[in-house]
């Protein structure tokens, strides 16, 4: 703690230095993540080259001569040392060029940009659904503390926490999709409908083009996959929030606020929730990679043309360029989520903002 600020507060420090420091902290966070991304890409690169599968076998016809193979190998740069290959790849990647897909012969960057909005849309919807359900049930179970509903909710939560996302997907398809036939579960939109492509995000595009029917269709197609992903996000949040709230309620400031006559509802929402949210938000950061990885299976199950589906296809064809690029995209997504999380934590907790 800074002792000078404890004894000599001044307005200038409070009004100017604080936001400046926050921006600097975020910038530092972002810069600090760059070498991490490079190391991740190197590891993936080396591993992919180490796997005893020759991508050339997939490319050349079975009757190709060894001279043909050598020529192609040289053309693709595969005959150079791995680290040199990596250097070339990194240089191109920094310019946004992830090479040509062996599988389709098109630019990897274009393929990813095509598929990415679908995945981000799913992730966003899943996270939102998860946050609402998690915070809601956590708060509800805490609000009902002391009654028999509390252990009931927590027991249910304990069971649900053990179910992985792809199982949720199957359960939801069978119950809401096939059984009750409430919601569609195949593809991103009704086959009969078309959305003009503006941003790539179907939700946004259908709204922008004023196509209400398409928007409704996109929402209903997104509902089940988002729910499956959201349930996975929600259960640990609910559990963590419930536990942290119970802990925070023993703190002196809650007691002191109650002695000032603060009613139970503002006490919970204004004083306790923010404090209890800190470990919960940190937990979301830890879980981010699991959830983002989860989109891979969810997209495949629901037939969504996102990067998860792309990845599965690339893995099947051993499309090194695509796998390599997608690994980096996944890593960046996880890093961005973590950046947002640490920003949120700093927004809420003043102590994180000031410590050097």
């Amino acid at each position, binding site marked *: *703690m800074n002792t000078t600020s404890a004894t000599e507060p001044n307005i200038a420090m409070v009004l100017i230095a604080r936001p400046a420091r926050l921006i600097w902290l975020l910038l530092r966070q972002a810069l600090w993540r760059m070498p991490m991304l490079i190391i991740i890409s190197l590891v993936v690169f080396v591993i992919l080259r180490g796997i005893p599968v020759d991508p050339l076998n997939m490319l050349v016809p079975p009757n190709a001569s060894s001279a043909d193979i050598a020529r192609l190998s040289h053309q693709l740069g595969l005959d150079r040392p791995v680290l040199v290959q990596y250097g070339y790849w990194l240089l191109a990647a920094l310019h946004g060029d992830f090479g040509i897909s062996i599988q389709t012969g098109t630019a990897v960057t274009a393929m990813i940009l095509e598929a990415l909005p679908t995945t981000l849309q799913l992730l966003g919807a899943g996270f939102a659904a998860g946050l609402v359900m998690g915070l809601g049930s956590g708060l509800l179970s805490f609000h009902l503390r002391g009654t028999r509903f509390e252990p009931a909710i927590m027991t249910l939560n304990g069971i649900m926490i053990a179910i992985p996302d792809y199982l949720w997907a199957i359960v939801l398809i069978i119950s809401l999709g096939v059984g009750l036939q409430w919601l569609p579960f195949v593809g991103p939109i009704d086959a009969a409908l078309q959305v003009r492509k503006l941003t790539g995000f179907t939700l946004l595009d259908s709204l922008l083009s004023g196509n209400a029917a398409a928007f409704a269709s996109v929402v209903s197609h997104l509902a089940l996959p988002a729910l499956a992903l959201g349930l996975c996000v929600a259960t640990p949040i609910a559990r963590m929030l419930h536990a942290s709230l119970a802990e925070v309620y023993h703190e002196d400031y809650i007691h002191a606020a*109650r002695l000032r*006559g603060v009613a139970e509802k503002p006490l919970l929402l204004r004083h306790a929730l923010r404090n209890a949210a800190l470990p919960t938000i940190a937990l979301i950061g830890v879980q981010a990679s699991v959830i983002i990885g989860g989109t891979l299976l969810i997209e495949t199950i629901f037939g969504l043309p996102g990067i998860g589906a792309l990845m599965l296809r690339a893995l099947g064809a051993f499309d090194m360029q695509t796998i390599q690029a997608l690994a980096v995209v996944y890593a960046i997504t996880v890093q961005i989520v973590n950046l947002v999380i640490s920003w949120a934590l700093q927004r809420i907790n003043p*102590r994180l903002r000031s410590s050097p």
Partner: protein
Amino acid sequence: MFERLNAVEPPDMHIIETPFKASNAHPLAALTATPDRAPVLTLESVSVTARTSGADSVVLRDLSLTLAAGKTLGLVGESGAGKSMLGRILSRQLPEGFKVTSGTVDFAGQDLLQVSTEQHRQWLGTRIAFIPQEPMSALNPLMTIGQQMTEHLLRIGVGALECPERAILALEQVRLPRAAAILQQYPYELSGGMCQRVMIAMAFASLPALVISDEATTALDVSSQAHIISLLRGLQEQHGTAVLFVTHDMGLATHACDDVAVLYAGEIMETGPASRLFSAMRHPYTQALRQAIPEMTGPLIRLKPLAGQMPGVESFPDLGGCRFETRCQYAVELCKQRPPILQSLPDGQSVRCSRWAQIDLSAITPDVLGEHTPGQAMSGLQILQIKGLSRTWPGQRSWFGRKPGVEALKPLDLSVAPGEFIGIVGGSGSGKSTLARLIMGLEQPSSGTLILNDQALNFGEKDWRRRISSIQMIFQDARAALNPKRRVGRLLTQAMESHAHLHSERSARAIELAANVGLARSAIERYPTQLSGGQRQRVNIGRSLCDMPQILIADEIVSGLDVSVQAQIMNLLLDLRKEHKFSLLLISHDLAVVRYLCSRVLVLHQGEVVESGDTEQVLSNPRHPYTQALIASVPPTRSDAVWRAATPSDH
């Protein structure tokens, strides 16, 4: 019962005019100004019953009190006496299983126990306000002071537009400098004293009829304590607020309160005007408390700690007679049979003792108890020499290099002789704990050398072994310092774990140590949580003695304890010294404790030794202004002495 004060003649007036009259705790000063003040709070034979595993236990028995507007009623007693229970009744925050079973609580003409929950909540913060014990943790760490002030002001009905102005006004009223900037700050950016001022500002913002201060100054250092008390008195006089002042510090109660009630095991043992209670006490318990408090002036007398400990709530049903009987030196057979009643005496005091008239408390005089000498050097040797020891924290990194460092401790010289007890005093942030950590080797010094037994002490593995075999540290919070999952026997002999020892050897040593620190042999098999606070501190001390160190470093080891336990621990240290001949570096903010234990004292202020020398000399004739201010901050134990701490200027 306190209305009778009207009839009492003032014994002798010591009214000193200070801006806030903090030193003037005389009840009659306020009374003469407004002759009949209406009672704000009247408790009539209130009892609280707790469901325990056995029979129902009456934890608060037959409590009757009256508190008039503009007056301060002190509730004193040891931990477990039920002092905080009253605040919990008023706030309806009784622990699980506790219930008010009889009596009425009249608050300004309405029965507080009968009003609806919603009505009661409305009163909290508006008509009844609380000042908490731990100011730092009583403020929401994620909200600025301004946000919390605004929330409270809105709740008590201040318009949203007026809030900023009112908040600044409220902070200025509690004499916080740069109030506007403080509103933008978070609690962790303020000191404990500043946080407590914020709490007081909030408490008085609605001009409540009643303020309950539960150990509000216990967590603060003495100079902050004096400031807070003077502030509280000032606001109270300004607004005619009634204050219920819960404290374990009898000296403080004498000077901060008009009337005092002494609680023991859930019963009022004695009440009366604060100015007279401790000079003309009648109850053996009050006397015992008084005898356990070390003095700041006068001859050094060996303290007489109260034997045993207060009965726990579970054993209350078994106490048929007087609850103090088991520890009372005047108890007779009659005391066991029926509980005594609280008798009101014509001079305004009340006493719950059937034998008060027969006991002559004045018979116990200092000469009966015997003289006492603090720990003096046993020889001219120097076991530890400290030369130029200092610690500087590197400055914060900023855009343009580093800010200048913070000097936690400026170069300091000190030598320690065998058997010598040295006190290190100073306010928070004075560097006294840094010094302890440097000597113990928990921190690296920025400069300076330590010479232990004529050999320089460095930072190698061998030096560390030499260090810990000669120097041991006793930590402040025994509850936190003892592993709750280990039995006392193993805790006591923890130092033996670094070498191979026979199991029998270790248990033999545990028995020896337990006997040394006055623990029953059965305690060896217990866990720390099963012990009382005093017993835990004994384990803590015993553990440090295991390897027979030459020097003990004790960081505030008696500050959290009740006076009788404090006296026990202090006597224990002096007795152990005779046997083991160790030296002690006692870090304390309590000057009376230092005076009782230490022959030499070092006064630290902002990392610098401002004064040092023979304890008696420094305390009776302080030269440095800081030492003088520090001594003045201590509320004197004598009720007729004037507490001159309340200076209006801020620290």
